[in-house]
């Protein structure tokens, strides 16, 4: 059993509109426990309620103890501080560090809060990096410093989570983290240029995990955390395909499903209804009579979905296939989804607004195969932690 410590403060919760607390989902398992630790009653209650039914995620309140620090006690700390660093000179100068640090910067910023010790051992700590541009409140600042100190004292590796722009990471934090999780190649290069080994920086590109660390809210990405969808329990190793129904191009849809059925890769197919009736027949009747058997043969899970769930399903899918051009396809491409119009009846058409037109089943197979390959390069927080865990 591995244990991961995950401190969360109010500022980071607010900055990510609460999404940070979803992050443990992809890490926690019967073999891995995640302890979210916070000093904030608000964060404690929110995360506690959210994860109350998950046995692998615990929420711990680290109750702050406010201190009144008399002047002579501050001086006493300074008296110990100076001998601790008396030998450190500012490089390229003969100026002792303690002289510029002890009497004002250290003495004047001695924290007014203490926090209890950690209970038990941890194998790793996830640390949301603060922003130099948004100084944390005193309590939060003291909390993170204490937790980092305790982690270092116990030799717990620290994995930094990049939430704010890399430019704003306080310099000392860059030096104390053991591993870095960033969201782009640019961020990786930024840290590499600052002397961090390439092998210690990981780019997270799983859309859901990235969004947990994002400070910009996106109403469509919010759908990734839809409670209903969560029950489907999509896994990262399965291909998720959204097929859009069409009243006329039934044969083409059957071709698509047959092709999917020929692939042994794990998959889930969402079959999206369009909400039509044709004379006396409902769409459901047509699907039941003509499509359902093909769906059963895809060698994977399938769900027939109402047309109102289009955007939600689109956000969850890796590949969207429609037999005709519909506007949501170009929206899908904006979220890095593979959006395809497959119809052998259509003439050859160049890509438009990120949507690929295919009129040949072999080409569709190629595109699906590429999509499967690309899916395998997705990196989730769980993938990264498997690599860094010690």
């Amino acid at each position, binding site marked *: 059993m591995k244990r991961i410590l995950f401190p969360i403060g109010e500022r980071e919760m607010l900055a990510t509109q609460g999404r940070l607390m979803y992050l443990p989902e992809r890490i926690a398992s019967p073999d891995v426990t995640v302890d979210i630790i916070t000093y904030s009653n608000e964060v404690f209650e929110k995360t506690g309620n959210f994860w109350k039914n998950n046995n692998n995620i615990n929420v711990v309140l680290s109750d702050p103890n406010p201190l*009144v620090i*008399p*002047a*002579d006690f501050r*001086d*006493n*700390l*300074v*008296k*110990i*501080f*100076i*001998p*601790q*660093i*008396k030998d*450190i000179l*500012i*490089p*390229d*100068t003969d*100026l*002792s*560090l*303690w*002289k*510029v*640090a*002890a*009497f*004002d*910067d*250290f*003495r004047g*910023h*001695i*924290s007014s809060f*203490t926090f209890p010790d950690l209970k038990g051992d941890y194998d790793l700590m996830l640390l949301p990096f*603060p922003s*130099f541009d948004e*100084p*944390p409140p005193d309590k939060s*600042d*003291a909390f*993170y*410093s*204490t937790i*980092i*100190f*305790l982690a*270092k*004292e116990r030799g717990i590796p620290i994995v930094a989570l990049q939430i704010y722009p890399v430019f704003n990471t*306080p*310099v*000392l*934090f860059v*030096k*104390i983290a053991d591993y870095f999780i960033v969201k782009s190649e640019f961020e990786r290069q930024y840290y590499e240029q*600052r*002397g961090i080994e390439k092998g210690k920086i990981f780019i997270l590109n799983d859309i859901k995990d990235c969004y947990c660390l994002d400070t910009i809210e996106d109403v469509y990405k919010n759908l990734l955390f839809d409670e209903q969808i969560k029950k489907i329990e999509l896994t990262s190793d399965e291909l998720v395909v959204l097929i859009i129904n069409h009243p006329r191009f039934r044969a083409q849809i059957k071709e698509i499903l047959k092709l999917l059925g020929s692939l042994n890769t794990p998959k889930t197919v969402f079959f999206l209804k369009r909400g039509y009736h044709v004379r006396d027949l409902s769409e459901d009747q047509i699907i039941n009579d003509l499509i359902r058997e093909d769906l059963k043969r895809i060698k994977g899970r399938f769900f027939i979905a109402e047309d109102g769930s289009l955007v939600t399903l689109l956000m969850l899918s890796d590949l969207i296939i429609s037999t005709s051009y519909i506007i949501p396809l170009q929206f899908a491409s904006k979220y890095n989804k593979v959006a395809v119009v497959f119809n052998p009846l259509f003439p050859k058409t160049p890509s438009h607004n990120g949507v690929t037109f295919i009129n040949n089943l072999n080409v569709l197979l190629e595109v699906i195969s590429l999509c499967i390959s690309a899916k395998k390069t997705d990196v989730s927080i769980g993938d990264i932690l498997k690599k860094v865990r010690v």
Partner: protein
Amino acid sequence: MNLKRKRIACLIALPHHTKFLMPVALEARKRGAEVIFFLTMADYPFERDLIKNGQKFRYLTDYMDNVTAEKIDSTLSRLLDIWKSRCFKWDGFRHWSLFEQSRFFNAAIEEYFCLERFIEKELPDLFIALHERNRWGKLTGHLAAKYGIPYVTFQEGDYHESRLSFSAHTEYSTADLIWGEASRDMLGSHKSAIDKLIFIGNTHLDNAIKTYSNPLNKKRVTEELGIPAGKKIVVVLLDLEWAAVIDKRVWFEFFKGTNNEIIFIFKWHPNALLGTYQKAEGIIKDLSPESIMLYTYDPYSLLAIADYCVTLGKTTLALESLAFGRPLFALPSRDGTKDYYVDMGVAQSVSPLGNWANLYRTIEEGVPPHIGNNIKEYLRKSFYRLDGKAIERAIDIMKYIFESRQPARGKGQGTRGKEQRAKSKEHISGRVSFIIPSGDDAEVLLATLTSLSQNVKYPDWEVVIVVNDENIKGMLSGISGDMQIVDAEGHNLSLLYNKGAEAASGEYLIFLRPGIVYFKDEGLLDGIENSVAGLPLKNPDMTPYCLGIGYDFNFTPYKIQNIEYRAQNTDNETFMSQRDAKGNENNPPSPPFGKGGMGGFSDENYRDAVGGGFIAMSRKIFESIGRFDEEIANHLIEPDICLKAKELNIKVRYLPDCLAFNYKETFFGEDVSDENWKNRVKFFAKWVGKFPKDEDFINFAGDLLKV
């Protein structure tokens, strides 16, 4: 000399810095100085007061160029690599938040290298800053020393409580201009360099009393605050701990026993958290709706309109209220341990809470006479003189620093306006001249003379007594031997030594103050052939009195009394490696002080300086160095002449095989007074950037570091 064309760089920080420094800087400008206000880029807008006063200023970051930026990046990264392996070692570090640590490191390194560029570009002649207790004060001091620029500092508030930072208050300062005796006692007890502490009074308060007490000003403030006519105004001043009290029961007790004859104005501590203040405001207004609560109001306006002041704990404003002539009442600090002002007899107690008897009695009968007398004495000790001339005194000192530095730039050693070099005189080869000022204690002088007659074995020697006390002359007429009597006046040891040297005929000159008992001089003449030399001086009980002269953490000379003392080569390197603003190295190291070693002598043969009342050199060396500087305090003339010797690459040697005793200390300290500061300032001004230094603060601070 005026300050014309002198470039004075003034470090501006928080408003309480500005209020003390600005009047001095502006006066310096009036006297012709070019004043450059410079500041750091902090979250707090330090430039605010400057802008309000229409002053131009520079940010240190204005001096950041590409090279500097690269240097900052590289140094910061290397420092943090060191720091990360250290900052988790001691539990105390976790109480200094990593975020604040980051801020500190970023700022400190940026400021250091930008300030260095500032110096290189602006070439200031003098730095002024409020104090050395923060990183800006230290960075400025360090670089000022590195570039040989005098550094004048002042005092931050009333030093009423012990602070470890006082031990570093005078480290780099050429002169530290303080309020008065009380501050000197406090700083002295923390090992600040007494010689660098000069009384000037309070540069802000002097003018503030005048300005704020103006009747029009008082009327404006009273109206602005809406104070009803006929009320007695009681201004309440809070220390930081009292300013954190949000327990309604406490304030309820506070108001007990008050009546509507008085109106309270609460001047909250500015460092209290706004949220705390707002809570307290709610409570107090609820209990006493008429009371006025102020968080950021100009405190001096309040002292000016106050009839009475009440201090809750220790505050600088309490002291200042006394300077404004306001009767003071006090409650002890929240820990209840000590009622500082009441104990000193300058305030009347209103403790426990709700006990206003003394206040009402004073309203009826006035301040009790014994309290009034105590206040006078307290103000004298605290503020030297409340005569409105503090700024003038500060300017005089700055002017004198510039004057003092002129000889070092070419005029050479000695008194301005007089012959700078010792006159070359016919002398008798091989003769040794003992030059002794008489002093005013015959017994002490006789002890010295007797020791010479008993212990000097040289074939040809003479004694030159420089008589500065008429009463001694008669006693000398009864003494036989080869002795010259030279008449002189005063207690200036340099002058007396110089007069003696002029009259002496020996090839070798040995200067002794009366009270030194000469005992053993093996190898002395060899030692002074090409050097300035001293010997071990012990007390009559054989404990060390002066085993050479060292320089402490404050760049200040002291008599070595530790028999384990070893000269530090690094001190000599410090002396030798001073750089000018263009980065050129002055005084390149030369044997035996350079890295080439000690030229065959062991460490114990060398000192940064020698003396303690005995210093010897050949006439040839005395003439090349020049005379003793007659404008320097008696106890500093030996280190001064040794610095001059070193500047000329003349060795300063300590001869451990010789011995003399200090029967009684004479002359040292006799010419030091609060008013006579020039003879100390000159020493520190003259050798800025060239002093040796012992960087071992732990050893220097000693018991001050005991927890």
